[in-house]
């Protein structure tokens, strides 16, 4: 295996993603956690780019960076200003947790080590945006349409719920 720029980039991105995830669990302030999450998401997008999945990478940044700002706003608005989460649990619990994490790690390692993919198509990265579009609008058109209807229903539901609240408050006043 040659030490190419791609490997270096992968190592950096993977490191940032893992560190972001660990910090998300260990930090105590809600805004700090969200920032750690941002770093994880962006490095995942970078890994998608390394895999030549540009469209997925860009959508990852587009959706998650927008959504993260909203999560941050809700975090600011719904929690007290100086609220921090306290670490809980005794030593015994921590030991069990560590064993669980270790076991999971070993299981995943063995699983990945013995995994054997059949030879993959090597042309997947060519025009992949166009290919995604073709597949979505021909082979997967019904799931795609159903998902959009579901999202529309959720949107209208949210509007109706918000409207009802307003009306009740107006009646009270």
């Amino acid at each position: 295996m040659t030490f190419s720029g791609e490997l270096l980039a992968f190592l950096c991105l993977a490191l940032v993603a893992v560190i972001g995830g660990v910090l998300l669990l260990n930090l105590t302030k809600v805004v700090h956690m969200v920032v750690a999450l941002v770093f994880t998401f962006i490095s995942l997008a970078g890994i998608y780019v390394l895999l030549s999945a540009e469209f997925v990478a860009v959508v990852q940044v587009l959706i998650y960076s927008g959504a993260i700002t909203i999560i941050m706003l809700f975090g600011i608005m719904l929690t007290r200003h100086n609220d921090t989460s306290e670490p809980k649990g005794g030593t015994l619990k921590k030991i069990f947790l560590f064993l669980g994490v270790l076991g999971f790690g070993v299981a995943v390692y063995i699983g990945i080590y013995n995994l054997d993919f059949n030879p993959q198509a090597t042309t997947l990265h060519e025009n992949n945006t166009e290919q995604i579009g073709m597949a979505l609008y021909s082979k997967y058109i019904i799931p795609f349409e159903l998902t959009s209807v579901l999202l529309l229903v959720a949107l209208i539901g949210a509007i109706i719920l918000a409207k009802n609240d307003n009306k009740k408050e107006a009646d009270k006043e």
Partner: protein
Amino acid sequence: MIEGLLHDQAGLLNFVIFFVLGAVLLLVILGFVTYAILAERKVMGFMQMRYGPNQVGGPWGLLQTVADVLKLLLKEDTIPKLADKPLFILAPVIAFAPSFMVIATIPFTDKLQFADIGVGLLYYIAVSGLTTIGVVMAGWSSNNKFALLGGMRAAAQMISYEIPLVMSVLGVVLLTGSLNLNEIVSAQENVWYILLQPIGFIVFFIASVAELNRIPFDLPEAENELIAGYFVEYSGFRWAFFMLSEYVYMFAMASLTTVLFLGGWLPLFSFLDFIPGAVWFALKFSLVIFILLWFRSTFPRIKADQLMEFGWKVLLPVALANIFLTAIIKSLF
């Protein structure tokens, strides 16, 4: 060339090449920002019948911005005692880095482009959205109510105007059949998209002014309500970073407008193609910048509720109707 370098052996030489390329681009951008600020003050002075800077560096004030930046760099760097220190320091970096990243994908001429990404247009929109995080972080970590209000407004505004921005360029994408900025430019060989997509262009331009946080949509930094908005607690070079990212976005957005609607580096008429593409790009780019400055000195700021209503109830439906119309026209002809 870049493609070849990426698959090369990682070595010191490659690192130096990438570093120098990036540094040159950064210097070009800094030069632009220096003179864009001067141009802004001069044009506003001209429109308001006064002189603008005319002391430092000759009668045109050519060194005024350089002196201002020097002052900023020498200024004491204050961090409020109750501020959230790590986020306070990180926020200007997160706000600035994406503004520089988006420029990589913009084709200035058919040869001069740093990254020819297949989904270039989406990349621009996605990465520019990251700045909002820096802005909200700055607002929250300053521990100041005006800063927090500014950050909240910035988040609400940038998210609601991103949607009409994306929707308005979908017409262009439909006509080209590609998200690649190079292909969008070459599809304008015969007629520019500003003529084929006039509604899309107007919606895009309004939404881009809102994304740039410039007057009439500069509510996040409305100085007469919020003092200075999200960067009220910043001083010295950290404050300079916020200002810098704003002007770099102006550069990037004007370039994107040129590429999407004004035909990029293509000449106005085909018999004028002896003039190099870079000159055409610069001319169109300067026109867009001038219109942005013109907006700033002629429009009053609108109210926060009007801003939201305008975005969701006017721009979004108009942009959706434009997509519908474009799709019908495309399938008919």
